[in-house]
């Protein structure tokens, strides 16, 4: 694991590390299975319609203290998530539920949310509008149940430590030494405990140092490395390890800051910056993980559209550097900004690769535009805080899908998405995405989304840099590890250790 989860309250989690831990220690109504489809979780069955959904919860579902998981735990969780004072970045995911948006804006009381528990084992959801992908949401961290008594006892501290939370998933967090290590052990009260074959999942070290991780693997201290550094690939193959590529579905992009007083508000400046960027050179020479695709749009190439891939139905021209145009944009920007372009701040993570990528852009901007770039390397928690406070000009960002629909990416550009960290605002984009949300005709709906995406890209709300592929490897005795773009990744709930004469778990 590279980063420490900032906290483990599912309502506030926004990052893959938290999702990985939460995905193993909590369970929503459904789980994503090996094929990326929702499968029964706490809910044993369900009925979906255009107006709402009914979930039937299993009688045997238990919290890690043995108490049953009831529909009321879901009602409490969803209401709490949407309250403005929870300030959940992902609350917008629940907006398909009736009155959810009004509640999150403070216009309605949380009790008016279109979700109810007629009895302990039935959860009724009313929709604000038809929502084709709703089932996909019910495995997201934001929809996990929360026990009212526990949550009230710890308040803001809920999820800050292993003993300040309670677990509904196959594993429970048995130890969490901040910044150092994590351990998850099998949850004895989990309803499907018979299917879990691992006794424990240990994260012996939390470090962004890919070298250190590699050495842990070599010493057989870890059984799985989910992301290898680019410089470790050859080393790994020389040691005889079998590498596996995994396109993790994420889009990496530069988020520009649109807050008042930021030079990056200027469209011509953004255009000048984008015009000196060569995505294919960047992918082949700087990222250099085979399988990585140069950035194209907000919606990545793998995403399904109506009949074919979304990107094939709504084509975008690959970006090519144009230094002459960059000069023109720069001149225009300079005039509009009053003669001088201030140094820009680039916010990135504290990894070697993050620094290398930043230095590539730093030199490109300096050489072709004469713009100074200050690199701000921060640990994950701090980076997240700075992104939310808007203390950057350009943030190197990543977005993974929350559910299997282009909306999960296009919604990044809308005013109501808290993950729109640069606070890009465009009424037309908002209006088109809203229109898409209430459109039943799938072709028309995707068309609207494509239009919204095109506007945001034309205005350079974001500059997509690449679509990620990671290289990963396991020890030969660890089997059935699932990697999927949506849901907790890597997924170890079905993993097992087979005896090969080597070290056991």
């Amino acid at each position, binding site marked *: 694991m590279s980063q420490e989860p900032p906290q483990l309250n599912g309502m506030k989690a926004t990052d893959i590390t938290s999702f990985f831990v939460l995905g193993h220690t909590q369970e929503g109504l459904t789980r994503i299975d090996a094929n990326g489809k929702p499968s029964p979780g706490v809910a044993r069955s369900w009925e979906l319609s255009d107006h709402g959904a009914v979930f039937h919860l299993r009688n045997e579902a238990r919290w890690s203290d043995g108490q049953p998981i009831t529909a009321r735990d879901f009602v409490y969780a969803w209401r709490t998530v949407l309250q403005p004072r929870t300030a959940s970045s992902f609350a917008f995911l629940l907006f398909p539920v009736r009155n959810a948006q009004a509640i999150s804006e403070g216009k309605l009381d949380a009790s008016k949310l279109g979700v109810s528990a007629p009895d302990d084992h039935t959860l009724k959801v009313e929709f604000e509008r038809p929502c084709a992908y709703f089932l996909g949401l019910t495995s997201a961290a934001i929809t996990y149940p929360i026990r009212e008594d526990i949550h009230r006892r710890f308040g803001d501290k809920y999820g800050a430590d292993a003993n300040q939370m309670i677990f509904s998933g196959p594993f429970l967090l048995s130890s969490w030494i901040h910044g150092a290590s994590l351990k998850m052990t099998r949850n004895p009260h989990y309803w499907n405990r018979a299917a879990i074959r691992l006794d424990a999942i240990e994260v012996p070290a939390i470090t962004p140092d*890919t*070298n250190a991780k590699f050495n842990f693997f070599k010493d057989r201290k870890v059984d799985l490395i989910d992301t290898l*550094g680019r*410089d470790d*690939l*050859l*080393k790994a*193959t020389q040691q*005889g390890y*079998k*590498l*596996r*590529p995994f*396109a993790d579905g994420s889009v990496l992009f530069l988020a520009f800051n649109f807050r008042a007083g930021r030079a990056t508000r200027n469209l011509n400046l953004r255009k000048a910056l984008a015009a000196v960027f060569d995505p*294919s*050179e960047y992918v*082949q*020479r*700087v990222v*250099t*993980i*085979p*399988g990585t695709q140069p950035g194209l749009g907000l919606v990545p190439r793998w995403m399904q559209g109506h009949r074919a891939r979304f990107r094939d139905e709504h084509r975008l021209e690959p970006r090519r550097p144009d230094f002459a145009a960059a000069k023109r944009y720069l001149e225009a920007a300079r005039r509009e900004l009053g003669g001088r372009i201030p*140094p820009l*701040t*680039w*916010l990135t993570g*504290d990894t*070697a690769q993050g*620094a*290398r990528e*930043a*230095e*590539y852009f*730093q*030199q490109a901007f*300096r*050489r072709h535009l004469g713009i*100074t*770039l*200050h*690199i*701000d*390397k921060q640990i994950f928690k701090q980076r997240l805080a700075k992104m939310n406070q808007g203390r950057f000009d350009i943030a190197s960002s990543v977005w993974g899908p929350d559910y299997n629909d282009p909306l999960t990416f296009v919604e990044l550009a809308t005013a109501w998405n808290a993950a729109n960290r640069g606070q890009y605002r465009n009424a037309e984009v908002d209006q088109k995405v809203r229109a898409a949300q209430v459109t039943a005709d799938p072709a028309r709906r995707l068309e609207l989304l494509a239009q919204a995406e095109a506007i945001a890209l034309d205005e350079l709300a974001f500059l997509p840099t690449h679509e990620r*592929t990671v*290289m990963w490897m396991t020890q030969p005795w660890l089997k059935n590890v699932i990697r999927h773009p949506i849901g907790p990744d890597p997924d170890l709930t079905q993993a097992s250790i087979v005896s090969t004469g080597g070290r056991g778990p």
Partner: protein
Amino acid sequence: MADALIPMPHEDFAPLSRQTLAPRAQRPSLSYWQDAWIRLRRNRQAWASLWILFALLLFTVAGPWLWTLDPSEQTLSRVSEPPSWHKEALVLPPPAPYREELRSGWPEAPATAVDPQTLAAPANFAFIEAPSIQGVRLRWDPVPGASGYLVYRVPERQPADSSALGIPVGEIQGGNHVSFEDTFNLKAGTYWYSVVARNGDESPRFSGLRAELVDGIPLESARQESASAQPGQRVRLQSHPLGTDSLGRDLLARLIRGARVSLFIGLLAPFLAGALGILVGGLAGYHGGRVDQLLMRFTDFVMALPFLLFMILIQVACGMEAGDSGIPVMLLALVALSWTSMARLVRGQVLQLRQADYVQAARLLGARPMTLLLRHLLPNTLGVVLVSLTFAIPQAIFTEAFLSFIGLGVVPPTPSWGSLCNDGIQTFLTSPHEFVFPALLISLTVLAFNLLGDGLRDALDPRLRSHP
């Protein structure tokens, strides 16, 4: 006793007339410093170190004039290159657009479940066109029962079995997709490509192909070096005598630029700290008593402060923003924390010298405290001070390297030896030169200063004087 007056004639008080003494046979007198110099020259290690340090100074000061490459200029077509001199490369024409080969009429996936263990190796594995470092284009015949393919590549060695195929460079979905273009970070040399059919899992059978890539340079990059470059020509590339780093920057230029930072900190910090230490130690030693107690307890307190924590605290207190260089802060922290040993040393010396007869004599003659301190006490501590200074310099250089290594020092793109080491260690196993050269320079400098310090200590020790 007025009658017992001793007569004092005026002449008795007249100055003596100048007189020349008879010449005496004597060898030329050697001052302390002259003697020390002679003894230093006789110490081979110290003398060699002095030359090394002189060369280093030249490297730092004259380097930028002799080697004029921009240390932050990136040549992405030449990343992580080993040292080279006057290398030539073929100018490559712009590649034709690549089109994926689709076998029409072939199913994307088999209709029935297939055991991947039984899948055959793809036949007719071949290059679509001559491979070059701009891209290697491969094709093969579809395999019945495959739902996709994996293309691997490994440099140099031919894979012996399916576990040694190397890095999976291509993951192809669909049994009817039968071509692939590899463009990822290709370098001149030999690569072995393999293709494996798969359906869920991989087949253990593979087809292999050897690609011999000659050094080439894309037309666009060639035009940047010489405007008239034509495809097919050979052009001489920019030399990189120490190779390039992972962004294609010249390592020699970066080392020269980095030396400036390392030596700036390495020399300035000990001198400032030394001055402060001499002042505090001198005052404490000279005054003694309460003043001494106060100053020395304060020194003990400063000594107890943990350096790294203090450094970070100063950074926070200075309101460091992204992009601000950590150098001034580092200097401040180094000076603020490393004067203590010098103060102790000087205090001890001064305490001892204060009792010396010549100091007492000067005091009786009415010398003012400042004169005493500056004329008699401090010059006589100079030997110890100098030795301690020579040992403090490598320590400061090392601290700078260490802080830049962990990212508290210079900000990119400014290099320092420490940050170069940090960059280099990432690629240590694949391109060791990126780490070895900066590490070598640090080690050499630190060693030279230490040996010189040793030599100085021996040379300045009055007990070892060669001419009593």
